[in-house]
């Protein structure tokens, strides 16, 4: 069993971001042995945007900005552990939203401290 894998053989860190509402249901999932970093999570937001049509993207401009802001905030506060379920909505527009789900493991954990070089 590789380090970081669960006993059931599933990757330890799983989740997805989704754009939902109206006729839209698009997502970027992840399942990996190491928790996605802040930059990896922001890249997933980019990947989700690439799936959206221009109208879908226009509708979700604010929710996506709110999601990115949350990812940065979480990274600065030590990351986040499952279960996480966050909804970022376009207010005044029914159902238009972007969701963050962390199903297992963590996201945006701080980088581990680098071991000090031994003095010569």
């Amino acid at each position: 069993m590789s380090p970081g894998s669960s006993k059931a053989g599933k990757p330890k860190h799983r989740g997805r971001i989704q754009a939902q509402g109206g006729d839209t249901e698009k997502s970027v999932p992840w399942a990996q042995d190491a928790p996605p970093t802040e930059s990896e999570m922001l890249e997933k937001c980019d990947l989700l945007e690439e799936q959206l049509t221009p109208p879908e993207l226009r509708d979700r401009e604010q929710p996506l900005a709110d999601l990115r802001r949350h990812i940065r905030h979480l990274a600065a506060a030590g990351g986040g552990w499952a279960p996480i379920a966050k909804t970022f909505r376009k207010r005044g527009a029914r159902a238009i939203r972007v969701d963050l789900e962390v199903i297992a493991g963590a996201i945006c954990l701080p980088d581990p401290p680098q071991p000090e070089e031994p003095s010569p």
Partner: protein
Amino acid sequence: MNRSLHPDFLKSAQEYDRAAALWKQRFDEIVRGLGQSWLWQTDWIETRSGNGTELRDGNPIFSAICPERRLGIRIVQLEPEADPLEFDFWMDFFAQGEAEEVKELVLSCVLSLETLNIATDLMRQWINDEELELERPSRLPLFTEVTVPQQGYYTYIPLHARRRGRLDALVA
């Protein structure tokens, strides 16, 4: 009177905790009345960051899960803007297709007495029936429910909105 409760909940930790306590109190009353207190756990969704800080962003402000039934409730409280009765709800699946899958009721609203009462009715239905009966006569004297189904997304229209003519615009 459509006054928001704890409108500064995102600016004051004390106000936030009071709003969160209000939701929990209402939920506890529901499950106690239905004899299901022992089945449900609150604080289902993690609201702290990795360094232990409470995020206090209202997203969610309250959550609960019944592990046995794989059923959940999540409430997102919004900062008051133009409409103190802003209220939306939908059904969704957390971790759909995974072993951790939970069928959840999500409520997204500004907190007021009216929205709290609507939320209470919906939560009670969800906990008792695992579904929402959207065209039943309302037990709430101030409201009548009219649904505008849109692929699983429903909006609860309060009576005062119907009087103002918003209903026709929403149904169109």
